[in-house]
């Protein structure tokens, strides 16, 4: 089981470097930018007043701009899930189906490892890789904190990153689940990605159309606390994400146990004729 775990972790190493550094650079930039807007709330509010509804919605609550937590949330933690989500849905959908579509899973599954242990090893390596990315991102942001007037400590932004990790884990589990139901890895990643995007826009527009709250509650971003978790994690929201992730993983595990492993070239529900 450890051989599979470390083999998969090795495969994620470039993603860890790329995504970790990218998120760290963005985080550093956002933190350092705070000083330039901290004393400009009045002028920002004046400019935003004349903007169309959609721009206001996308910009977020302007009054939050000048608070350290509001700034970090609106400019980093709220938008990062959309880009980092690409990693989540692609890797989640590819945990098994990538190797299956490449025709490599047959051989790997001929080794004496039960499907449950194989599932655990691969999911654990993805979770660790995601955790490492979040860790690098946290280090990047933390390194810039002493040079700003945010007044937030490195320890203070741990919980928002925990919240980010949980949200990404949910989308990975969802994409993994979809990969066992939908015809291909790309379609599975796309389906999970659509849910992420819809969820994001619901959160954007719920500020200008409160009636959307009912729908937004059905989507995962509602339970993601982002920068607001600097004040502490909302346990209920945390539990909702944890339960949803566990549920998606549980369904994915059951589907994998009964899965008929496809050979390369089979990309649909119907198996092509092969010898």
């Amino acid at each position, binding site marked *: 089981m*450890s*051989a*599979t775990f470390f*083999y998969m972790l090795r*495969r994620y190493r470039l993603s860890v470097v790329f995504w970790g550094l990218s998120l760290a650079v963005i985080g550093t930039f956002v933190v350092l930018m705070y000083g330039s807007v901290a004393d400009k709330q009045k002028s920002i509010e004046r400019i935003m007043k004349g903007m169309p509804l959609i721009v206001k919605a996308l910009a977020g609550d302007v009054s939050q701009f000048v608070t350290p937590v509001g700034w970090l949330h609106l400019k980093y933690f709220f938008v990062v899930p959309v880009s980092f989500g690409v990693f989540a849905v692609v890797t989640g959908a590819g945990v098994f189906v990538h190797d299956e579509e*490449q*025709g*490599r899973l*047959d*051989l*790997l*599954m*001929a*080794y*004496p*490892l*039960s499907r449950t242990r194989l599932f655990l090893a691969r999911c654990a390596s993805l979770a660790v890789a995601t955790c490492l990315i979040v860790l690098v991102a946290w280090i990047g942001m933390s390194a810039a904190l002493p040079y700003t007037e945010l007044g937030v400590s490195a320890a203070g932004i741990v919980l928002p990153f925990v919240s980010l990790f949980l949200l990404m884990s949910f989308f990975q589990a969802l994409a993994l689940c979809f990969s066992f139901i939908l015809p291909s890895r790309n379609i599975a990643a796309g389906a999970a990605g659509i849910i992420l995007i819809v969820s994001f826009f619901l959160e954007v527009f719920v500020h200008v159309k409160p009636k959307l709250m009912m729908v937004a509650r059905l989507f995962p971003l509602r339970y993601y606390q982002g920068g607001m978790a600097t004040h502490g994690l909302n346990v209920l929201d945390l539990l909702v994400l944890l339960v949803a992730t566990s549920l998606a993983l549980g369904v994915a595990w059951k589907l994998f146990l009964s899965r*008929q*492993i496809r*050979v*390369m070239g089979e990309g649909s529900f*119907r*198996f*092509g*004729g*092969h*010898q």
Partner: protein
Amino acid sequence: MPSSSAAISCQGVTKSYGANLALRGIDLEVPEGEVFGFLGPNGAGKTTLIRCLLNMIRPDGGNLQVLGRCPQMDSVAVRAETGYLPGELNLDTALTVGQILTLFRRMRGGSVSPRKVNVLAERLQLDQSRPIRHLSKGNKQKVGIIQAVMHEPRLLILDEPTSGLDPLMQREVLTLVQEAKARGASVFFSSHLLSETEEVADRAAIVRAGEVVVSGETSALMRNALVRVSVTLERAIAMEVFDHLPNVWVMANRNDRDLALQVRGELDALMRALAGHGVQRFEPVPATLEDVFLSHYLRMAS
């Protein structure tokens, strides 16, 4: 541990992919310690059966036993004692040969020594420092063969093992098969190359469209095969003569005097028919497994 004299036992195994019936009730028995040739053209159901044996796919019906165990209920134990070479071998191209063999060794739980792997790599002339992405098909096949045999399994399942290998390496692989047999292992050898099956297999089965059309000892199968006979006559013979000989087919004819024939069973009737036409040459060619294969296909087609 369950005991059984059969390494593989299949009874009425069926498997379909949607409307496509891939296995239509496969019955076969592979005795322990034997090399069993599983022959058939592409699409006959060979790989489907192998994938059922290793629990990658599940049969729709019938009963399967591998080394006395049910591969669906006890798949880890079955795979621990089995070495498998897939027909379509795809390896992680980001690794080197040495790295992937180390991975395979570790996935066997450390039961294989690095030395054993090195010996096999040396024997197959495989450079372990080379990246997989730079390997030819034949060299990738060598990686597949090493990982299948390195733990000296009780059962070797080889799907087209010599595919992509040069003649020297083909011979080396057949030697490995014979060595596995010599230490008491069973080998399930799927191939569409009849010559190599004939060389190493104690028994063989021919599968067509998901059904075993014939199985038995390789030598017995060849005895019952079509015999090719080349004949040269002094005087021309009317082709209608052969219409009355039920087990004789004219494959080639030149001037009604030089003939290539295929005969099933006794040659007596043919010799009687040719008598009186001045037989100058009568050369029966010994049957090969190829002939067995073709004879069954000709029979099915007719």
